């Protein structure tokens, strides 16, 4: 039985899809069987970031509607055989999702993968709610910038009220990834510090990703930046993937200890 993690942000354009692609591949590189699912129906993007856009035959809506089976729709990455991908429908709109269908798909994926990573749509509408409903945990992606942080707080609020786990009296684990940090702006007091963001959102840190031009270069080519060993963002995704797989990876130039976080994340698998 695998773990289901929704990648959420509230605001669009903060790097949610890039994070999903890189963490999915990073987990696969750590020898865990991983599937990444694009829940952004009508605005398919994860296929491009993974370089798999030409291999999509069936999408997740067709699987949910019984027009294709899961085996037919899953695309195996050529970069790493542990990584699989399930595309969003490009022609339908978000209203095609319903709870029963989503639950069935998610539990089917959970049976065959160690990690099921769901790339949520931006916003806090029904498409978002369906993505988080059956997730065990959420990774919240923000930029160190006011609108992203405010929108993330709304998304977290909805997670805390609509998650099936919360409704059953359980907790849904939440971890923060701060993307696009510019170190010298933080030093000069022109960019929010990670500690301040964690305090405002009241959430635990999973990792920090520095601003890196290599990210756009990587998405141009459809090769996730984690494959570029020299990229500082790629290295950050590599560290976060290690943490998700239960390794003790020190939080690079971060002032808070990740000992507690490490225990919590590994605890998910027990």
């Amino acid at each position, binding site marked *: 039985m695998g773990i289901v993690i929704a990648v959420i942000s509230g605001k669009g354009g903060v790097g949610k899809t890039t994070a999903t692609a890189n963490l999915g591949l990073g987990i696969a590189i750590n020898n865990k069987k991983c599937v990444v699912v694009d829940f952004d129906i009508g605005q398919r993007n994860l296929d491009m970031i993974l370089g798999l856009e030409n291999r999509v035959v069936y999408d997740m809506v067709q699987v949910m509607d019984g027009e294709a089976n899961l085996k037919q729709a899953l695309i195996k990455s050529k970069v790493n055989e542990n990584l699989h991908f399930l595309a969003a429908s490009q022609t339908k709109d978000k209203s095609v999702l319903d709870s029963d269908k989503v639950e069935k798909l998610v539990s089917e994926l959970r049976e065959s993968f160690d990690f099921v990573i769901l790339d949520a749509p931006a916003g806090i509408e029904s498409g978002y709610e369906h993505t988080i409903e059956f997730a065990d945990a959420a990774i919240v992606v923000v930029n160190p*910038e*006011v609108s992203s942080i*405010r929108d993330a707080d709304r998304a977290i609020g909805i997670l805390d*009220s609509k998650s099936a786990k919360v409704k059953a009296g359980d907790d849904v684990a939440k971890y923060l990834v701060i993307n696009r940090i510019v170190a010298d702006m933080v030093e000069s007091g022109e960019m*929010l510090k990670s500690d301040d963001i964690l305090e*405002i959102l009241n959430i635990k840190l999973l990792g920090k990703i520095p601003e890196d031009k290599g990210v756009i270069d990587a998405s141009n080519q459809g090769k996730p930046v984690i494959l570029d060993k020299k990229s500082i963002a790629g290295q950050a995704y590599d560290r976060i993937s290690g943490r998700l797989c239960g390794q003790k990876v020190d939080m690079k130039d971060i002032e808070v200890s990740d000992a507690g976080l490490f225990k919590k994340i590994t605890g998910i698998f027990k």
Partner: protein
Amino acid sequence: MFGFFENKKSATVAKDRLTIAIMSDRDRTNGYPFMDEMKAEIIKVVQKYVGVKDVEIRKEVDGEVEALAIDVELDKNA
């Protein structure tokens, strides 16, 4: 004297503004997880006696005190 604000770094300004905006967002929008179900049940109960147009439930926070404000709009034609 007004140099105080000028010297304040923009990240500090961002933190202060965000703290206030998020606190007010949470008060206004984040209710309790049971509110949708409670609303449906209230409609059912009231409808036994009189027609209901809409029910609105709000969480109101005043310092340490939390309260629920429930408005039931009746439907005279029902």
